[in-house]
């Protein structure tokens, strides 16, 4: 993978991982996916598996890109950045809906 693309790829994987985890949170599931039906247990498991896979892929890409030391540091910080981005997305997606119901 070209060097210039690998950082967006790592960040994107982290974003996807936390996106999946965000859906396993009851409140976000109701706001974003299905407000009537509760979150099925099997979906939670699948989403968590997907999240773990994405994180593992991001870690391997980061270590492959920069070696163990820098790779792990980059991975940890990219995870945080991904989680912050997911949270911003959730806020952005929920905002108008909440505004109307209030």
């Amino acid at each position, binding site marked *: 993978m070209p060097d210039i693309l690998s950082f967006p790829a790592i960040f994107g994987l982290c974003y996807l991982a936390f996106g999946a985890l965000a859906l396993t*949170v009851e409140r976000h599931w109701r706001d974003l996916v299905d407000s009537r039906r509760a979150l099925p247990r099997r979906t939670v498991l699948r989403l968590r598996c997907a999240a773990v896979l994405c994180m593992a892929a991001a870690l391997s890409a980061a270590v492959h890109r920069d070696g163990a030391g820098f790779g792990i540091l980059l991975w940890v910080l990219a995870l945080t950045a991904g989680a912050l981005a997911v*949270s911003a997305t959730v806020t952005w997606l929920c905002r108008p809906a909440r505004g109307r119901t209030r």
Partner: protein
Amino acid sequence: MTAGKRKLIGPALRAAMLWPHTWAGVTLGGLLMLVFFMGSLAVFASEIDRWMMPDTRIGAVEAPDAAVSLDRTVVPLVERLAAGREVRDWYVQLPDERRPVMALRVRTEGGNAGGMATAGGTLLPPVGTLGASSFFYPLHYSLHLRAGFVGYWIVSFASVAMLAGLISGVIIHARIFKDFFTFRSWGQLRRSLLDLHNLTGVLVLPFHLMITFTGIVIILPIVLPAGVQALYGGDVQRFYDDALGNYSRPRAGIAAAAAPLDPMLAEARRLWGGGEPAVVFVYNAGDAASVVRINRDTGDRISLDVQPVFFDGVTGALLKYQPPGPMVAAHRVMSGLHFAAFEHWPLRWLYFLFGLAGCVLIGTGMLHWMEKRRVVHGLPGVGWRSVAALTCGTTTGLLIATLAMMAANRLLPSGVPSRELVEVGVFFLTWIASAVHAAVRTKIDPPWSSQCTAVALLAAACVLMNWITTGEHPVRAAAAGDWAVVGVDAVLVLTAAGAWRVSRRLARRARPEASTLSRLTDHA
């Protein structure tokens, strides 16, 4: 983990943790804000330096193509800087990717001299500024209080409070996983502030724990000298010599001719097995006990181990090259994690952003305290107003002071005597003025709107004045590949746009007059 946590952390513990969390934040929040903000700037100290020292930019000097020769290029420069006085010690920071010039510092019989020179050996006119690396960065770790390491002690104390605040915050926060991504930017202001406080606190927790801990680790032998007292009789210098493989010896007082330096560079490279020299020190120059120290550039690794190699300055023989033991090596890695001296742009930006996230964490904490107090106590008293003014003075006030210094840097003519001190004066006077403004104008709310307008105008003015005084606007800088200037200008433009939007929104929003206040109280 959740179940275990529930057993471990009961409501009583949570209640007990709230008090230290709150009061550590309210009392030390302003100081921590300064430390985090200046630390974030320090990540890009080299880039801000280039912006503040136009003579040293990529466009102004030729890029260093080959390795600099110490004997042919640097030594004559040292003699010119000494101007006939007898040289005691000197050092040179060799050019690197982020600083295309070398920086020299010479200590002579009759005072110190310093300067910057191109890789070709041309001495540049005095930069006339301390820049980010000598002003913002020391402000971050020592508050410029050098005597007796007072600044170190204050910053370390606040950092331990920060660590305690982070830990107690995690204990207090009852619903970490349920609220993991939650930020409700709508509705009650107090809830939005708490959401943002929790969000930055939890999501950026690994970074904040790491950066605060490693920050204290760097100066640990100074602020916790227990082991040094026990084993080295309190002699920190001797400890550092032993731990980091340093070497020193007193002046002999006998003049001796210096050995050529370039072969020492080659030998150091060989000992390192690759890697570039970053700094060369010559102690006791021209003396029989002369010592040459060569530090390795740490840009390619996390560890801050500069692997110093010491040579005899007269014979050129190797005096000392001692790799540190495993614990000291771990200490160096932790220091390196904090310093972020490595060549890694994504990581540098993440450090910058998460440092600013630390400012958001501290700022929202203080704002939340203010809002909550307002709800509980109704009309604000003196204590509330002091905290409000402190919060305003250390958020927007700090930004105003920083931007005012950068504006002064572009506005002051180069001939002003002690130009760098005038800039520093501008920084502190503006800061005091904005704090006083905040204190005087805080009735129901601090003057957020007017201070944000000031931030926006100053940031925009900085970009414009950089363009006018150096002719380098962002587009031209990008074309020339001067990414330092592009980056600083871009962040300034973003700051201006953001601050302007905030100030307009705040001005539009009805001020929380008595009616809003009573409504808020009803909610509570």
